[in-house]
């Protein structure tokens, strides 16, 4: 039976490039698709900016973020203090820059943790099926039912505060979506003939999962990861806002917003500037995630 024409109504005879396979021309194509989405490029720029800020905070920040009284308290933005000062006379701009560090560490850390645990669970549940699948997925369902912030608060109440605990708390909250997304794709990939071929060649189960299943379900996982980083950052900010984040005087955007609450009328910049930083970061990362998904998706759903 001749192969029917493919989706784009172009003859399928010439082999077509698919997403994550190496080769200079496919990478370039990928980039072209991605670059066409202006939002995604903006998101990428934001992401890179955050990384730069986090890594080179020492070089970029004009003042030490912890030293009080480098300027008058609650001063509006001026040439010496581009983002003004807070109620302790600390330079806002430096605090924003150092705050990016925490945001990034928590964002990436939590997502990495969630990814490792969630993907492992999803792989096992999807590939082996049966009661293993049922047990794992019901636990995931339970986890899903909790709003992440409540879960995080509960965990922090038990574990105590500190950056490490925030990462764990937020990470646990995100395990369920990773497990689900992974499992869904594993179920599809499991049915492909090349999996059966591996089985019939005598390849043992864990090797099949590692060599054949995992590489073929990576694409949606990466997209999930990109989309969740912003959620992790928001959750972390929320926790800090509530006072459950890293303790003061650590510069964290969430607690900075909280500190500015009392001065909203006379010195709005103390709350709004970190708020804007947070918003730009989150929107940018979301756009990046969307862009990645759009660039990868039509190729993956082959």
């Amino acid at each position, binding site marked *: *039976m*001749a*192969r*029917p*024409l493919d989706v*784009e*109504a*172009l*003859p*399928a*005879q*010439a082999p077509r490039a698919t997403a994550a396979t190496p080769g200079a021309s496919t990478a370039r*194509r990928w980039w*072209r698709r991605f670059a066409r989405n202006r939002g995604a490029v903006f998101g990428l720029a934001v992401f890179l900016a955050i990384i730069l800020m986090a890594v080179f905070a020492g070089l970029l920040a004009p003042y030490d973020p912890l030293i009080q009284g480098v300027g008058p308290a609650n001063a509006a933005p001026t040439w010496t203090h581009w983002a003004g000062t807070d109620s302790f006379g600390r330079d806002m701009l430096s605090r924003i820059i150092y705050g990016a560090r925490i945001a990034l560490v928590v964002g990436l850390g939590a997502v990495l943790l969630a990814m490792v645990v969630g993907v492992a669970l999803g792989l096992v549940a999807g590939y082996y099926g049966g009661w293993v699948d049922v047990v794992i997925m019901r636990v995931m369902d339970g986890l899903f039912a909790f709003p992440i912030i409540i879960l995080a608060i509960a965990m922090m109440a038990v574990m105590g505060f500190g950056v490490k605990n925030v990462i764990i708390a937020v990470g646990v909250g995100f395990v369920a979506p990773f497990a689900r997304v992974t499992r869904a794709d594993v179920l599809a990939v499991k049915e492909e003939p090349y999996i059966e071929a591996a089985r019939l060649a005598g390849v043992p189960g864990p090797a099949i999962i590692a060599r054949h299943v995992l590489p073929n379900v990576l694409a949606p996982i990466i997209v999930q990861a990109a989309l969740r980083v912003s959620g992790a950052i928001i959750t972390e900010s929320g926790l800090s806002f509530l006072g459950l984040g890293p303790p003061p005087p650590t510069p964290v955007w969430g607690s900075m917003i909280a500190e500015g609450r009392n001065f909203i009328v006379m010195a709005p910049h103390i709350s709004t500037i970190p708020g804007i930083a947070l918003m730009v970061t989150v929107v940018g990362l979301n756009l990046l995630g969307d862009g990645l998904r759009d660039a990868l998706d039509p190729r993956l759903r082959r």
Partner: protein
Amino acid sequence: MDPVLEVRDLVVEFTTEDGPLRAVDGVSFSIGRGEIVGLVGESGAGKTLTSEALLGLIRCPPGRVSGEVRFRGRNLLALEEPALARIRGKEIAMIFQNPGASLNPVFRVGDQLVEAMALHLGDGRGALRRRAAEILTRVGIPSAATRARDYPHQFSGGMAQRVMIGMGVACAPGLLIADEPTTALDVTIQAQVLSLIRRLAREMGMAVLLVSHDLGIVSQMCHRVIVMYAGRIVEEAAIATVFRAPAHPYTRALIACLPGLDDGGRLGAIRGVMPGLKAVPRGCRFHPRCNLAEPRCAVEEPVLRPAGADQIAACHLVGTE
């Protein structure tokens, strides 16, 4: 007698990331009343796109269709959508490979038939329902009146295809386009469906354009054959001629590839693969795979020229014998 369908210089082009690509590159042919013409080629040759272009089924953009498609005198490519919609289903019908995909799963089959006819014929519902039952009987579905109340999933592949044929011929079209109508069916069911098409064509004086990759089917169904390769026609001939004395090397090679029921030893195979749109060779498109290629074939593209009594082929070697 005037041909029912006359296609002249049909071109179907797509704008892609690599620039414009021509999937159908200057195709011309005609079909007479009651004639069954086979459009044959391997996947990627452009035969399905050709048939879709006739009815304006190609999305433009990214596609672009040019040329002339005269049906009963009118150029279909010049018509706007409402006028085309009136022709589709009524004067030109099309059936596809997968009947399951063409029938709406949530409506009863009889209702879908009535719907198809109501669009084009003015009769009342009662009359249309009776006609629907008649059509189902005519296409060989037993207990038509009862079956009309069934849903598509209750029909097997062969039966569903019969229903599609019924819907196609319900308004007595002048032309039926059948695109690989039996590729998804078993051999014995395929025989039933194809013989049905043949019978209807004869009874209704309907012309048929049968698109297929299967030379065997085409040889048993059609009066004339058009062979396509890489977007162009390479040979066109009456059925008896093309299989007895194929003129184009590709046609010959294709016939030699078929394991017939009286065979042995090695199958004739064609080395290489049909070129994709981006890699069309200079000169004759088939020459890299042709055993008889001459230096001229790599430089100059051959045009269709007479090769026999009612046979034309696009090959430099034709006409020199």
